[in-house]
């Protein structure tokens, strides 16, 4: 096999629920810490326990971090998927397996190398607790890989120390398992393999983080106070991240009161309804969902569009149609989201390409929703949302003010002649709104999903309807000037 430095793919084949995720992350994160661009992908089934799951790590010094064909090294600890895993190894590649049991003859290929490590045997010998035996078996293969791929052992140890901070017993056990792997590989295999790692300084100040965390954090920074959601893969961790950071930053230290409200709704319809209710009442609110949720939210998205109520939706897309492949990535919601609801609707979508943009766009979407008084959808996908990506670090300009849009205060209402909720005063298609409870006699209006005139009165008059629809289109034009510029990426080197 050709020698390759910092350019290969390792795939881990595990059983869902066996604790492989942290070991695999340890592997990827170590490479990241070595200053080498790396991208891990979780490839998992729509299942909680027992089905095959894979973790694929691409290392690319040149920064090519999408998935590509060809597995250079397969670490297979899942007998269930082994037949398929053996086939997927690139010719000339390597196949590491648990050699406690003999490898069945049908899995033997003559164009790949086999690296048998008796992980179970070693683990059973070293550890007595059954649960630990299973978990630490994974660290043993990380140790073996460290030796084979020339990983910085010190970096692994630092990471273990960070991961189990304060749990000395666990740190010791992990260190022991790591060492077992290292020693085994050193003793039984030629190392390093032709493809392996060399320390670089290509990461600089970048971070390794998933998009959902970034969205949740962006919502905290963007000032969202109400989050309503219904659990759905792959968006759930957006809500979890939001809650995590709210707990960190939004609890009054004196009283313990929360400067946020998170409601796990009964369904996506209700989640969007709550967002709309809260936004209508002047709070910044958002929800996160995926395709099937967007389908359900169509009703409310139409209402928010037509009644001009702000709303923010983070759509972490997954494969459709219908329930589709809940744990596989796809971008199938673009049309659904762009024109959500019946009738003439056009929605503003923000499409982040990195965790940094997930953070920025989620915060920005809260501004845009209030500025434009319409739903804003942040369209990420399972890959961006649930996998760790190397990203520019998050940044917040201190002193940045939220753009609360055109909202009239009680004092301003005093100086407004006749308040027209849907009156295009400024010529940008965006009318002025009032929060409930502002003024005893002025500025109250009726919000409705039916057609209305400039003063929010119900009407079926053709001319009034058209004026309203034309104004919404004008607002759409205004939106174009407010959203981030589209970025077009091109592979320059291959250009002819």
């Amino acid at each position, binding site marked *: 096999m050709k020698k390759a430095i910092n350019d290969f793919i390792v795939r881990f084949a595990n059983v869902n629920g066996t604790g492989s995720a942290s070991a695999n992350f340890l592997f990827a994160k170590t490479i*990241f*810490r070595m200053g080498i661009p790396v991208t891990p992908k979780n490839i998992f089934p729509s299942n909680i326990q027992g089905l095959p799951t894979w973790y694929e790590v691409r290392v690319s010094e040149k920064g090519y971090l999408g998935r590509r064909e060809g597995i250079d090294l397969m670490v297979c600890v899942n007998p269930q998927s082994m037949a398929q895993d053996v086939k997927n190894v690139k010719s000339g590649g390597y196949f590491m397996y648990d050699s406690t049991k003999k490898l069945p003859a049908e899995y033997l290929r003559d164009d790949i190398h086999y690296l048998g490590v008796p992980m179970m045997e070693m683990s059973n010998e070293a550890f007595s607790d059954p649960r630990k035996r299973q978990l630490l078996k994974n660290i043993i293969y990380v140790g073996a890989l460290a030796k084979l791929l020339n990983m910085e052992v010190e970096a692994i140890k630092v990471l273990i120390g960070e991961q189990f901070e304060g749990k000395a017993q666990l740190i010791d056990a992990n260190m022991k398992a790591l060492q077992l792997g290292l020693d085994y590989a050193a003793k039984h295999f030629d190392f390093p393999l032709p493809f392996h790692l060399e320390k670089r300084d290509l*990461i600089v*100040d970048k*971070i*390794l*983080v998933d998009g959902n965390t970034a969205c949740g954090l962006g919502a*905290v920074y963007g*000032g969202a*106070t*109400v989050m*309503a959601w219904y659990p759905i893969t792959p968006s759930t961790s957006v809500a979890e991240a939001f809650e995590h*950071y709210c707990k*960190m*930053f*939004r609890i*009054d230290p004196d009283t*313990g*009161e*929360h*400067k*946020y*409200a998170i*409601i796990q*709704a*009964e*369904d996506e319809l*209700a989640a969007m*309804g*709550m967002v*709309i*209710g*809260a936004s*209508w*009442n*002047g*709070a910044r*609110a958002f929800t996160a969902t995926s395709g099937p949720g967007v389908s359900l939210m169509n*009703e*409310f998205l139409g*209402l928010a569009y037509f009644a001009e109520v702000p709303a923010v939706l983070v759509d972490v897309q997954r494969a459709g149609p219908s329930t589709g492949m809940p744990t596989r990535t796809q971008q199938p919601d673009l049309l659904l989201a762009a024109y959500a609801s019946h009738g003439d609707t056009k929605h503003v979508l923000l499409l982040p390409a990195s965790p940094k943009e997930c953070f920025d766009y989620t915060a920005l979407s809260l501004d845009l929703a209030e500025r434009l008084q319409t739903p804003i959808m942040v369209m990420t996908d399972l890959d961006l949302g649930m996998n760790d990506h190397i990203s520019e670090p*998050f*940044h*917040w*300009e*201190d002193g940045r003010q*939220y753009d609360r849009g055109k909202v009239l205060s009680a004092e301003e209402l005093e100086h407004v002649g006749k308040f027209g909720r849907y009156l295009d005063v400024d010529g940008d298609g965006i009318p002025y709104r*009032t*929060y*409930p*409870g*502002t003024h*005893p*006699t002025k500025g*109250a*209006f*009726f*919000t*409705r*999903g039916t057609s209305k005139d400039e003063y929010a009165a119900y009407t079926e008059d053709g001319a009034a309807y058209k004026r309203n629809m034309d104004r919404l289109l004008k607002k759409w034009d205004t939106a174009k000037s407010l959203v981030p510029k589209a970025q077009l990426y091109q592979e320059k080197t291959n250009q002819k």
Partner: protein
Amino acid sequence: MSYLKPLFKHPRLPKNKLGYTLKEYEGSLSTLCAGCGHDSISAAIVQACYEMAVEPHKVAKISGIGCSSKTPTYFLGNSHGFNSVHGRMPSVATGASMANKDMQYFGVSGDGDSASIGMGQFVHVIRRNLNMVYIVMNNGCYGLTKGQDSATADQGSKSKAGSINPFQAIDLASMAIELGASFVAQSFSGDKQQLVPLIKAAMQHKGFAFLNVISPCVTFNNNPGSTKSYDYVREHIEATSTLDFVPEMPEIKASYESGKSSRIALHDGSLIQLNKLATDWDPENRISAVNALQQARAKQEILTGLLYVNSEWKDLHGVLNTYHKPLNRLDESDLCPGEENLLSINAGYR
């Protein structure tokens, strides 16, 4: 010309302690059918808000879709209203409440809106004990689509067209008690003397206050054989009690017949004064309330009045322990953790 409401009012119209007359709490002229029970309920809301001297703009009215959901146009014209989508009022109300805990929320719904398309949201808003007044204007039929039976139509009730409803009725009041509503009452649109104090008490109750109000549909469900007609309801109504809502703790002066009189204190010290008519019924006991309802049903009676109340349970804001200041009034300084914290978050992802 009688689609416009004259602007004149009675020159000696009494004022409440805020200096407002009843007029300040009215909305525009109803476009529902003449004689619709819903209009009476709207009027009862107007009366209750006037008597409670709430500032009209501190009330938000939220509804779904249907005849009942149109009514917020017809009361509290100085309040913001939100006529949302069918069956989804509870979620919009929940969001609104989360944004501003300092306002009074009126949710108006109908039997179709709550017992059919909105059943999911209805039961969940109860579970959360959202601090709101939830009124179902229950006429047992779909008025806007011309009189089809709804899920609360009684089995055996006859429609205007003459067909008999073969299905069991959903009993919203029993269900609300079962699901943990902290205030459940039942009333009749034609009995403002009972309805107005019930609405007042519901407004003062901190938590989910549910009012199932039988409200005859004069156009499609007021025929002989219907169990939601004015005549039928008047003949079969059975009040649990007569009641008064007492906004502040008064000196006890009146004496009531022992065993029949009961006072229920709400969280703020205001009182519901009950003069019980039903025996073996304790409004602070869930089992007893459910029993009373079931027994009334067995006798084909419609039990009205306050059925159940519990002022101990925390409302949703209490459960979530939200900030004392309404969330919609928080700004960057309250909400944004700032760059310094972000630097350490970044460090955690390296």
